[in-house]
């Protein structure tokens, strides 16, 4: 089976800094791949490079046999990528409804139907639909960000640290949400919360200093304390 998303030796710079120095990644349809690594390793930059927000300076990014490497971000996204950024990417000056509408670039009936379906799953958002997004709590903002990535018929969803800054009870809710739509979607998840990563992921990649240095199944990672200590700096209890 061909991978849905493939990164081959991808490099990228932020300003003068060479952040990604050779990232290789394969994501197969229907699986959830977790990208792990210490702070500053290049996890977020990997997602932003896939989207095109950080241009790739070398290597190749292929989604479903389409070369995304030199595409501008808006075209990359239209090939079927949903993006849930670390800071949620919610527009405070827009209502919840408008935050959905701005993401619905296709504007066809199927998209509106999907939006209605998503709202049935995220009841908090349905109740807050006409409110300004600035009035939402941290958990609601994260839910809105995830829900917004589901309104288009995306082939893959990139999610950057969905548990960051959230209370434990909200993290559980986010985890349950990811587990629900994991059944239908292919996911790439950047996550520092090891429990969340293990709960959601099927496979993992570890990035160190802008390079993918290791990959395997989540079970292999959970069972290998030495690997956790060496690459992630901790051991699970």
């Amino acid at each position, binding site marked *: 089976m061909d991978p849905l998303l493939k990164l081959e030796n991808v490099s990228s710079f932020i300003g003068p800094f060479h952040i990604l120095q050779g990232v290789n990644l394969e994501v197969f349809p229907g699986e959830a791949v977790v990208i792990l690594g210490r702070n500053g390793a290049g996890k977020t930059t990997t997602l932003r490079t896939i*989207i*095109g*927000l950080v241009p790739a300076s070398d290597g190749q990014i292929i989604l479903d046999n389409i070369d995304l490497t030199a595409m*501008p*971000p*808006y075209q990359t*996204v*239209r090939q079927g990528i949903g*993006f849930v*950024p670390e800071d949620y*990417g919610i*527009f*405070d*000056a*827009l209502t919840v409804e*408008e935050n959905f*509408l*701005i*993401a619905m*670039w296709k504007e066809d009936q199927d998209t509106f139907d999907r939006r209605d379906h998503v709202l049935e799953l995220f009841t908090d958002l349905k109740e807050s639909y006409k409110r300004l997004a600035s009035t939402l709590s941290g958990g609601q903002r994260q839910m809105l960000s995830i829900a*917004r990535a589901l309104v*288009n018929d995306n082939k893959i969803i990139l999610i950057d640290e969905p548990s960051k800054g959230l209370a434990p009870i909200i993290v559980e809710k986010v985890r349950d949400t990811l587990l629900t739509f994991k059944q239908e979607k292919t996911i790439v998840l950047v996550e520092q919360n090891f429990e969340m990563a293990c709960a959601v992921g099927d496979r993992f990649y570890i990035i160190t200093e802008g390079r993918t240095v290791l990959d395997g199944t989540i079970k292999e990672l959970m069972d290998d304390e030495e690997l956790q200590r060496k690459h992630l700096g901790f051991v699970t209890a």
Partner: protein
Amino acid sequence: MHIFLMLLINGLAEGALIFLMAAGLSIILGLLGVVNFTHGVLFIWGGYVSIWIFSMTGSFAIAIIAAVAAGFVMGLIFERLFIRPVYGNVTAQILITLGLGVVFTDMARLFWGPNPIPAARPEFMDGTWVFGAVIISQYRIFLIIIGILVAIGINYLVNRTKVGMVMRAGIQSPDMVQALGINIKVYFAGVFAGGAALAALGGALYVPLVGSVWSGMGINNQILAFIVIILGGMGSFYGSAVGSIIIGLTVAFVSWFYPPLTVYTTVLLLLLVLTLKPEGLFGMAVRN
């Protein structure tokens, strides 16, 4: 009382003209993060083009439409060729837009000559209404109406359309807008050109008010527009509207009672607002 009413109308008409400059300038600053000094020259070109077309067609409406179209096209060209390469570089923006101002002011002198060109008001708006001791210029009322219509139009565009939705979102995070599948560059170009068209409209409407067009008429209005957007809050459409009215009324009243103080009063007003509310009256985040 009659003086008060006349000054009120004069001030509102002046405010309407400043608003046409300030609204575009403010949105360009808020959404694009561009400090734009080409607005003065677009104001001038709007004035010249309207007079030129009016002299050929005799139609005030066609002259205004032509001026707006010229401003829009110039805005598109400026954005594509000169502004787009320097997004995010404020120093370069200031230098380039100041340079464009100099070049296009001289081009206007080259095309239309260095001397002021007289301009008549359209006949149907050349009269006055007299209510007792109060004399009201029809053209000033026309300016106020245009200002209100443009404000309503921009308000509708910003708050009721997808274009406005993208503009409001883009002010906060243009990257995220792109990550949702929207080509923000098209919106950037459109906003810049729209702002340029408003400045040109301001110039086209200003010329019949003062009775002539000359190549130095843009600078004062550009300075007033900058004062308005700082006073009202950078990036805020409502700030531009309210700031324009405040500055328009201030200029009208002070210049009537003690003209030498006019410039100082507007600057003092600006200092007062910045001291009490540094982000301006309706301040909001402006992209770095």
